[in-house]
């Protein structure tokens, strides 16, 4: 039987791709929009979100980091490809990792020990946090982004069905 939390990572991938599809329809100048109290521009937030996912995956699975916020914005088509791959790898990590396993990691020049369970929950939190920032920016500028909560995911994937349905 599959652990229940795998569904959280399937949702995570779906929500990233849904919101990237919304943002792919924006004009280049709209990607520079922001809103008070959020992380930054839409483009900057996506770049950070996808780059951070790859850093989490490097800790979880040893995969390669290909997106870095210090590089020029690669465009949303490129980020969407990375987000799809990141999403699959996070689902794989959710199946494979042992939460109590400890790794040594460097952060801001200091070596720390952390449990892999913390890394994978941070990946979920971080994606959710920055997607909400992007939705706040879109909402602030009256740009609709559709339903993207877990009910919408359930409808899209057929997990929510009519009573009496198959």
């Amino acid at each position, binding site marked *: *039987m599959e*652990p*229940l*939390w795998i*569904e*959280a990572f399937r*949702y995570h991938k779906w*929500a990233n791709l849904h919101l990237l599809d919304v943002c792919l329809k924006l004009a280049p100048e709209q990607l520079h929009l922001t*809103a*008070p*109290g*959020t992380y930054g521009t839409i483009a900057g937030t996506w770049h950070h979100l996808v780059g951070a996912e790859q850093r989490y995956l490097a800790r979880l699975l040893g995969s390669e980091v290909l997106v870095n916020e210090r590089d020029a914005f690669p465009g949303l088509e490129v980020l969407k490809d990375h987000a799809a791959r990141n999403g699959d790898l996070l689902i794989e990590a*959710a199946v494979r990792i042992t*939460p*109590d396993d400890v790794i*040594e990691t460097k952060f801001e020049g*200091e*070596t*720390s*020990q*952390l*449990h892999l*369970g*913390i890394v*994978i*929950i*941070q990946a*979920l*939190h*971080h994606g*959710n*946090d920055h997607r*909400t*920032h992007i*939705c*706040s*920016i*879109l*909402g*602030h*500028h009256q740009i609709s982004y559709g339903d993207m*909560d*877990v*009910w919408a*995911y*359930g409808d899209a994937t057929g*997990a*929510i*069905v*009519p*009573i009496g349905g198959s």
Partner: protein
Amino acid sequence: MGPVLIEAFRYNRWANLHLLDVCAKLTDEQLRLTSPGTFGTIAATLTHMLAAEQRYLWRFGGYEPELKEQDGFPGVASLREHAAGSGDRFIAEAARLNDGNAGEAKLREGETRAPLAMIFVQALHHGNDHRTHICTILGHHGIPYGDMDVWAYGEAVGAYQAPPEA
């Protein structure tokens, strides 16, 4: 650490209480602050977030919601008690149903049904989403709210630490 699902709900409880402790220091006027693109005021967002948690728990059975948005804002101290209680109940449900088929819940006035895994995932998403809204409002108005990502949680619970000096 426990399994990822349980740890994710421990983080959810910790983050709710952290943010409620921040909001407990705000004036009544500050609790009515909002920011473009978010859900509403800080007070309304906290009330909605925790009332929704109770409705999610109701779907697991054996629990009756006590908090409703239409009754108005009951104060941060009261919401903190509700958050601690619903946080504990989610952790218990996650422990009870962690490994395997958790069954189904009825949604939308009984017209649809979904795996209980969806309720867990929506509860995590919804809390994260609205905490981010509140942090956006606080950030917009220059009110600090401290570190409340999963790294901060890991430090608080001892799952993320500097290794001992060699």
